[in-house]
């Protein structure tokens, strides 16, 4: 757990670790900003799955820290990123090597209902999005069952797919 200054604890950044079937799982949550302690990235080894669905947001200095951290991940670590949060998908699309040598397995997408206007995040697997252009992400509205579409510009939001 990393805290600094007088920040409210809800704004903190945290990493929870556990191991299952020989794979280390790291669950990141909170805000990646100038106070986030990303030093754990330097010590990754073996099979690692980094869960990013609870990362609330990242600021410009957090991006800098993240890129430095990812670049310092030992080459012997095989890192897979899952549940990549919307704010991180945006960064991934702007910065070519945002996840370095790692592989993205799944990501959250902001969806909007074409009927009732409800918005919600839906998890998609990268493997399911490959092979069609445009991808045309779709889901079903939890409120009215109508079709939900990506609430973003597809060619920008899914630009990262060509890298994985």
């Amino acid at each position, binding site marked *: 757990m990393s805290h*600094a*200054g*007088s*920040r*409210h604890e809800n*704004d903190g950044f945290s990493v929870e670790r556990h191991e299952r079937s020989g794979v280390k799982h790291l669950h990141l949550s909170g805000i990646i*900003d*100038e*106070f986030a302690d990303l030093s754990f990235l330097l010590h990754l080894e073996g099979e690692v799955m980094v869960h990013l669905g609870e990362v*609330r*947001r990242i*600021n*410009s*200095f957090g*991006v*800098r820290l*993240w*890129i430095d951290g990812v670049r310092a991940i030992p080459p012997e670590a095989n890192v897979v990123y899952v549940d990549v949060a*919307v*704010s991180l998908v*945006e*960064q991934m699309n*702007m*910065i*070519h*090597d945002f996840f370095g040598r790692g592989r993205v397995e799944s990501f959250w997408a*902001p969806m*909007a209902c074409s009927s009732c*206007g409800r*918005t919600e*995040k839906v998890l998609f697997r990268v493997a399911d999005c490959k092979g069609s252009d445009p991808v045309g992400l779709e889901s079903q509205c939890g409120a009215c069952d109508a079709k939900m579409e*990506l*609430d*973003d*510009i597809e060619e*920008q939001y899914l630009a990262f797919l060509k890298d994985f």
Partner: protein
Amino acid sequence: MLGRRVLYYDSDDAALLLAKRVIVGTGGEATVLSDAAALDHVDLAGYDIVVLTLDEAAGPYKRAFLERSVALAPRTKVVLHACELDLECIEWMSQWPTLSHVMAKREVPLDTEELTVTIAKLLRRDHFGLDKYLPWGVDTYEVEVRDSRDKAQYVREVSNLASRLGCSDRLVELVETVVDELSTNAIFNAPRNADGVPRYAHLSRREAVALQDSECAGLTFAFDGRYFAVAQRDPFGALTRETVVTYLERCLKRTPDQLPGAGGAGMGLFRVYRVLSKLIFNIRPGELTEVIGLIDLRQSIKSLLTQPKSLHFFIEEAEL
């Protein structure tokens, strides 16, 4: 002293009628033009403000018109009225320092509110204040930005309002990003010593910095039923138009290796810019900077990302 002669070009007569009324209503002397070919012959120096709608008819004439305005009438304020703030507009702003205003053509035939504010600010040389973009009666909230250790609190103050307004989690997060980036800039980048040298920019953003009374910035925010508005004012006037335009140009080109600071300053600005409807910089060089961002809450995020955007630099020095 800026005069009151305003030329407005648009091939749409309905837009011209509205524009003429707005210009007269703000105290200007209006000349309207619907013939794009006549743009080649306009006596640019005869006008204090020129509004050029970048419609299809103006296409063949716009570049020559802008080049002439820079060469022959550098003190004439040129306002582009564009269907999108695309890379071409930003490149023009980068190329021609006198081009400081792009007004988005979001409404047909035009957004009379934005035209009124833009013309009035230019004519009256009264640039500062979020209130100019809000109707009477709207409550504005103010926070003093003083200490880096309290940044999370500043962010919460603003995002709490966004949450109370029923904004989606993503929009609240984007509002938080706006305030985070603005506050960091106000604490670390804006403060200057008497020689104009940055006081805290060299420090790690993890350092605790408490601004002196004379250095404190002000954060103002409000909602008027349409726009969520955030403004930050610092008493230094150190931000330059060139810095902002350069960052936006690099980000719009989306060249990863050229992204400013590999994710540092500029990235925040761009991320914020993507969802804003209007971004306004009021600068009194060496004295005062005010950054205003307006997000149209009636729009979906997708609409916010794709809608045309307004970008204004009101720089007092340029009007001396």
